[in-house]
């Protein structure tokens, strides 16, 4: 329905007047065909509603006139068709559904773990009337962050071959995802409190991993290196190529020292046959390479293969840094440069020294976008930048030098973080990375920041009384609930929402099709976990009635029994008795055996159904009596009869058949089996029955015509014999 989404202007200015910009492919309408299989004419009546997930439920109604004439029962009222709309998570990068589910499932356990810790700590601090939790808490948050981070993909490179190819400059790594890049940024700034002093160096590493992501929108150092690597195979003397020197200076500017040194060693002067006449030149190249590999870095340690010398302590670092720069200056002024005959080499090596000395102009021309320039500043101009305020000021400066028309989503995120603007960070997260990101990132944002905590956890009137944090979790839970494969993890997020979580969880559970036994069992389990007894009882009732309606009486009774639903069990009992009355008196009890077993002992809720149990026992003993003349069995049968007649749950309509069945007991040879009071009881019941017959709602059972009178005669005879006996 494109007409509803955009308004077409004949002048062609439709783009500018649209409030929300649609990407071009969403403008092409997708046509779905409905297969309703109805014969025309179809009345122009349709009802459209959302079904589960991306399905649209379309109900096609027949026009009322035709309904009356059509005899075909299949299409009496019309037909309901479900239409599955294609379409993925457009706003997020994780559009591969299987990968997305893996992340969704994987993040459940870290999230639940952290929530448990949080609740435990809150309980503890309440107990102690203090909030001593900062140190421990930041440790847990970091743990959580690392776990989530590892889910988003591995940073490690693919296994390298044993023989290293000298011409492979860039390592082959798995395509990084911007989701992971964003998560790492948040981790650097919010979660990793221990390494706060080394944020600049962490950002250097970060860019080394994710610079390729910027290549989609803007040229980058990574892109330049990729291009150069492709050319490299065809180049004979690299030092004559400007691209070679450009690649080196760019890589140096952003601090990829290992790549720089590797490239420098490709210099022609290293070749054995050249060594003799290019000795000075080679010495200079090597001197620069050594200086680069000795660059002091203020950080705890470097990963394998990365170059530089680490200084943990700031004063040590300053000393080393001064010394290093002095060495560069000394080399810069050295007399050997005059003896270097290769022009390209001399000039470009000097340029490299300028980069290392922090020449703003050289750095700016070696880098492409402002984040790269920013990193270059950290490395060569102001390595002591600390505090978000000064970092933000530096970023502003770099942006002025390298302006971008439409900043990349990661750039926007960096600005938001540096600007200490939680709202902007939240907005960027939800806009660029989707509901998963924001639901999980709020834990990082609030870690250790009271301001952010207030912002995120304050209950807001305009959000219906919930906090921002809760509203994002609810949104994420909705996304999870909308898919058949993920709904079962939504409860974990819902239950962490104090205000509306439980309510929405109940709705979610009610919406599940519980007549599928697996869904029902899952439902019951979730209810048990979160103490939602009434919800699970309702689910069991629905399932019970469903089974009952489809003729599976045993399963119906079972679930209603589980739900403790006496009202419905009684209704079922009445229906079952109709059935029993017809079949039980003549046939064997085999079929009923299982159901009666299921009903179990008397302690369980069985409502009127417990009658069946006693009836079975009575029938059994009567059977034995008929098999042979055993006074003992007959006595037992008589007792069972009295029990049944006394029991209020025995339906009235069974009274006469029961008595009629036991005629043999009443006319027992030898001595009467029932005493006076017992016989009187039965006579009273018979009397009651005669009175009840006069009532309009009496149900007549199909008995032989003389049944009532023969029972009455038998009872009277028995009474006489019993009186005589006593």
């Amino acid at each position: 329905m494109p007409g509803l989404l955009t308004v077409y202007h004949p002048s062609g200015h439709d783009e500018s007047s649209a409030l929300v910009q649609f990407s071009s492919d969403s403008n092409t309408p997708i046509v779905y065909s409905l297969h309703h299989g109805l014969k025309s004419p179809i009345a122009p009546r349709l009802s459209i509603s959302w079904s589960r997930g991306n399905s649209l439920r379309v109900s096609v109604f027949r026009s009322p006139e035709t309904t009356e004439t059509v005899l075909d029962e299949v299409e009496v009222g019309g037909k309901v068709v479900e239409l599955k709309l294609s379409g993925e998570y457009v706003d997020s990068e994780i559009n591969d559904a299987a990968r997305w589910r893996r992340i969704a499932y994987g993040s459940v356990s870290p999230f639940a773990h952290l929530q448990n810790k949080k609740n435990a700590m809150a309980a503890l601090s309440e107990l102690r009337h203090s909030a001593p939790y900062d140190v421990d808490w930041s440790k847990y948050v970091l743990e959580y962050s690392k776990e989530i981070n590892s889910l988003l993909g591995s940073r490690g490179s693919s296994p390298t071959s044993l023989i290293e190819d000298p011409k492979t400059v860039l390592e082959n790594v798995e395509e990084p995802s911007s989701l992971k890049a964003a998560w790492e940024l948040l981790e650097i700034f919010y979660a990793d409190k221990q390494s706060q002093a080394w944020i600049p160096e962490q950002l250097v590493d970060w860019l080394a991993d994710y610079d390729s992501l910027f290549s989609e929108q803007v040229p980058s150092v990574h892109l330049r290196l990729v291009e150069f690597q492709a050319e490299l195979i065809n180049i004979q003397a690299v030092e004559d190529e400007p691209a070679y020197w450009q690649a080196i200076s760019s890589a140096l500017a952003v601090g990829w020292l290992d790549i720089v040194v590797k490239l420098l060693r490709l210099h022609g002067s290293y070749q054995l046959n050249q060594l003799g006449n290019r000795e000075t030149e080679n010495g200079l190249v090597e001197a620069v390479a050594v200086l680069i590999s000795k660059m002091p870095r203020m950080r705890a340690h470097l990963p394998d293969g990365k170059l530089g010398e680490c200084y943990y302590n700031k004063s040590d670092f300053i000393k080393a840094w001064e010394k290093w720069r002095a060495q560069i200056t000394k080399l810069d002024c050295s007399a050997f440069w005059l003896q270097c005959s290769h022009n390209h080499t001399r000039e470009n090596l000097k340029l490299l020294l300028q980069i290392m000395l922090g020449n703003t102009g050289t750095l700016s021309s070696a880098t492409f976008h402002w984040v790269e320039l920013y990193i270059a500043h950290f490395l060569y101009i102001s390595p002591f930048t600390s505090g978000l305020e000064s970092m933000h000021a530096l970023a502003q400066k770099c942006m002025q030098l390298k302006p971008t028309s439409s900043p990349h989503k990661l750039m926007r995120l960096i600005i938001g973080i540096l600007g200490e603007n939680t709202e902007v960070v939240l907005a960027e997260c939800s806009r660029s990375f989707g509901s998963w990101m924001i639901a999980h990132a709020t834990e990082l944002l609030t870690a250790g920041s009271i301001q952010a905590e207030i912002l995120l956890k304050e209950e807001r009137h305009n959000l219906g009384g919930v906090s921002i944090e809760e509203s994002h979790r609810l949104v994420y839970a909705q996304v999870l609930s909308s898919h058949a494969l993920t709904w079962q993890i939504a409860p974990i997020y819902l239950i962490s929402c104090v205000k509306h979580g439980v309510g929405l969880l109940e709705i979610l559970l009610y919406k599940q099709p519980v007549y599928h036994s697996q869904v029902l069992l899952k439902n019951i389990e979730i209810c048990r976990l979160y103490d939602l007894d009434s919800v699970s009882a309702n689910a069991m009732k629905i399932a019970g009635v469903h089974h009952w309606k489809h003729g599976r009486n045993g399963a119906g009774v079972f679930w209603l029994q589980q739900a403790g639903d006496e009202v419905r069990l009684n209704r079922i009992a009445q229906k079952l008795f109709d059935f029993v009355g017809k079949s039980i008196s003549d046939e064997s009890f085999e079929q009923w055996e299982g159901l009666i077993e299921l009903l179990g002992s008397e302690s369980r809720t069985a409502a009127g159904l417990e009658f069946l149990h006693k009836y079975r026992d009575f029938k059994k003993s009567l059977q034995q009596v008929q098999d042979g003349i055993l006074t003992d069995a007959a006595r037992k049968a008589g007792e069972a009869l009295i029990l049944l007649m006394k029991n209020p749950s025995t339906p009235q309509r069974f009274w006469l058949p029961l008595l009629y069945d036991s005629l043999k007991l009443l006319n027992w040879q030898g001595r009467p089996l029932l005493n006076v009071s017992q016989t009187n009881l039965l006579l009273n019941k018979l009397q009651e029955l005669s009175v009840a017959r006069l009532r309009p709602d009496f149900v007549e059972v199909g008995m032989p015509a003389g049944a009532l009178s023969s029972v009455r005669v038998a009872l009277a005879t028995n009474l006489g014999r019993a009186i005589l006996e006593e």
Partner: protein
Amino acid sequence: MATETLKQFHRLPQSTYVDALRFLPPLSAFDRYVVVASFNSDSDETSIEIHALNPSTPPILTLQSSFTLSSRISSLKVAQKSLQNPLIAASTFAGSLHVLFPNPIDVSFESEVSIPEKTLHLGPITCLDLQENGSACVSVGEDGRVNLISVGDSGLDYRRIFDSKGLVSYTASRWASPTEFATGGLGNSLQWWDQRRPGGPVSQFKGNWSQGAASGVVHSIDIHPSRKHTCLAGGSYGTVFAWDLRRPQQPIVLSGIDAGEPMSSSSISESEVWEVQYDTFMSASNRANISSERVLPVMICSEDGILAVIKQGCHLQS
């Protein structure tokens, strides 16, 4: 009670819902194949797929062949006639039953025979079991019917053994011998059937469970070929119990909330136990060391993601 944790296991995430899976009997010394009943919820497609398992670290599954069905699979079993090709039997929630014969060379599906829905059962087939040699199959359903399907060269033939007309629902079945089998159902009940004595179950087990365990459902049964008198069952609330035919009223509870004596046993899981199996990798000599009074070690898997081996009195878990 000692609990050890298993160190080595691999997750192999799949993009579709895996309803069931089995190993195919080895066709040669080198190949290992897995039969997967998969359901794609986006396209509503059900298929039976055969994957080759490459035992590298981590193991890799490679799809070899697939067969599309119209309804989701409720139960999947594999068997092999002596020295012949293996066969795969699957039942669906719509009530149809399919038997597939994979080609032993390239595991493509050569032929299929099936019984359409609404023939064997009204509604879903909850469980089926193939005899070890693949010659016969027993199917049970919520409608209370028990059917015996013979798998012959000419096709499938079926016979109704019992019909409770919905008064009893069955949720699990398992062969014990060529003539005997066990079924399980609601309320943690078990039934023992013998084809030589038709007309109904030969023996019924309905232990005197307390309220909690009586509300369970049996999901899986296993019977060890060397100890046919014991029927092992797993079901709701982490219940795993054995039923000894020689002492029919007293269940041996291996795990679950209803242990009878609360201190003697405990529960590994509180969730649905979907499958129980005797630990078949245990050597015969080891088995001989366990007295016939004790239950052999049992492997289980449950809804909350627990794989465990339970020995009577202790368990090993992953």
